[in-house]
């Protein structure tokens, strides 16, 4: 305490100076309209700046909830898209079946569910990712998995009650039907197991003109994948003179090292299509046998 008084006593002039200075400035800012306005403006500026910084930081802590919310909204919007429905002839309207209808009488073909990636790998030759939805939530094998920006990620290969295992596009056994957006020619996507950034596409005839940057989309005939969703872009054309087909290197559209939110897409008519296919084969084969 004594030291404090000594300190104040020693610097008394300085403190007096500060005191008078504060007094003078308070006069200045209180009684002069211009200075008052400027002072208040500066104060506002300061507090506004502080507030915006605080809001920025605060926002960061709500980022996860916010992205979850956006993903949910995207999910509900994806389910409303027209491409998820098949137009049916009005004459067939009275034919009831179990497939849900929307109010316009369109039959729903694709149902979108959102999910989160709980584990993921890109370093192996056979990469899988795990999502937090399982058979209890209606996930079954062969459903397509798309990234939150609607680029293709993989396909469900196994399910447990609450989790599903997804075979990533980065899997040497993956074999995905794809089309060139420009020409509509179909080919096959596979992976050579080297770089997680590039896929390989084969089966495009050399009569097609391919340029770097051409878009590759999912094919329209697949039972699992929703048609015409982004897979990637042509990164380079591998020279192969022995064949009449291109070998293309495709840069993936999805960033496989950073998958967080995904969509699981169910083709509600896949069973019906598969059954029809099987029945047809059986029918024709049996006819053949009886002949």
């Amino acid at each position: 305490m004594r030291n404090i008084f000594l300190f104040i006593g020693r610097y008394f002039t300085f403190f007096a100076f500060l005191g008078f200075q504060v007094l003078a400035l308070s006069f200045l800012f209180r009684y002069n309209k211009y200075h008052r306005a400027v002072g208040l403006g500066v104060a506002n500026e300061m507090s506004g700046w502080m507030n915006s910084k605080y809001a920025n930081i605060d926002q960061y802590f709500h980022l996860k909830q916010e992205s979850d919310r956006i993903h949910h909204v995207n999910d509900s919007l994806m389910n409303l898209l027209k491409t998820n429905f098949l137009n049916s002839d009005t004459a067939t309207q009275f034919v009831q079946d179990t497939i849900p209808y929307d109010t316009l009488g369109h039959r729903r073909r694709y149902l979108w569910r959102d999910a989160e990636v709980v584990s993921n790998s890109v370093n192996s030759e056979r990469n899988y990712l795990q999502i937090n939805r399982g058979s209890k939530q209606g996930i079954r094998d062969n459903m397509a998995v798309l990234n939150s920006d609607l680029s293709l990620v993989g396909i469900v290969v196994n399910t447990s009650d609450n989790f599903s295992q997804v075979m990533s596009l980065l899997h040497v056994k993956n074999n995905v039907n794809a089309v060139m957006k420009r020409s509509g020619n179909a080919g096959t996507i596979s992976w050579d197991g080297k770089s997680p950034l590039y896929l390989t596409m084969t089966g495009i005839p050399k009569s097609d003109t391919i340029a770097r940057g051409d878009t590759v989309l999912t094919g329209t005939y697949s039972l699992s994948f929703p048609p015409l969703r982004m897979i990637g872009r042509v990164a380079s054309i591998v020279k192969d003179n022995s064949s009449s087909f291109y070998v293309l290197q495709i840069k993936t559209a999805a960033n496989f090292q950073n998958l967080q939110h995904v969509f699981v897409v169910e083709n509600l008519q896949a069973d019906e299509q598969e059954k029809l296919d099987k029945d047809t084969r059986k029918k024709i084969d049996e006819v053949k046998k009886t002949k």
Partner: protein
Amino acid sequence: MSDLVKNILRFTIFILVQVYVLFKVPHLHRFITPYLYYLFILWLPFATPRFWLLVIGFITGLSLDYFTQTPGLHAAACLLIAYIRPFIINLLLPKDSTEFNYREPSPRTLGWTPYGIYVLTLTVFHHGYMLLLEWLSFGSVLTFLIKLVATTGISLLLIFATELLFPRKMRYRTNTA
């Protein structure tokens, strides 16, 4: 004439000259405002206690402020030069203070060059701080500097004119005073 009476007279004259002469003359230029009144603070006796220097500086500035309707503006600037005045004088005074017996700063007591430095430093501090407060947001740095230099120049001119026109008779400080 005692120091007190002399300084009260000076105070009155400086404020009145500043308000009714220097503020009334037509402006030479928008950048140039002639200031002289703070010479009063520069002329205060060496022996003035530092705290009283502050009080006198504050009152001088505030008195001018009441004429110019800007409370606090000149007071803040005068306070600043009243505060730093002793430091500058300590730097400029001869080290051996036994030989130094004059009452107050003047060209004759300090010598022309040290007195010039003394005046220049305090003028720059006074004008710099005052212009800073007057503008606050600086406008542009270049305009601020031009105005500072111009105002300092005209003030120095006025101060040295005053010193030459009204040479103060410097008595030695004696014990009998």
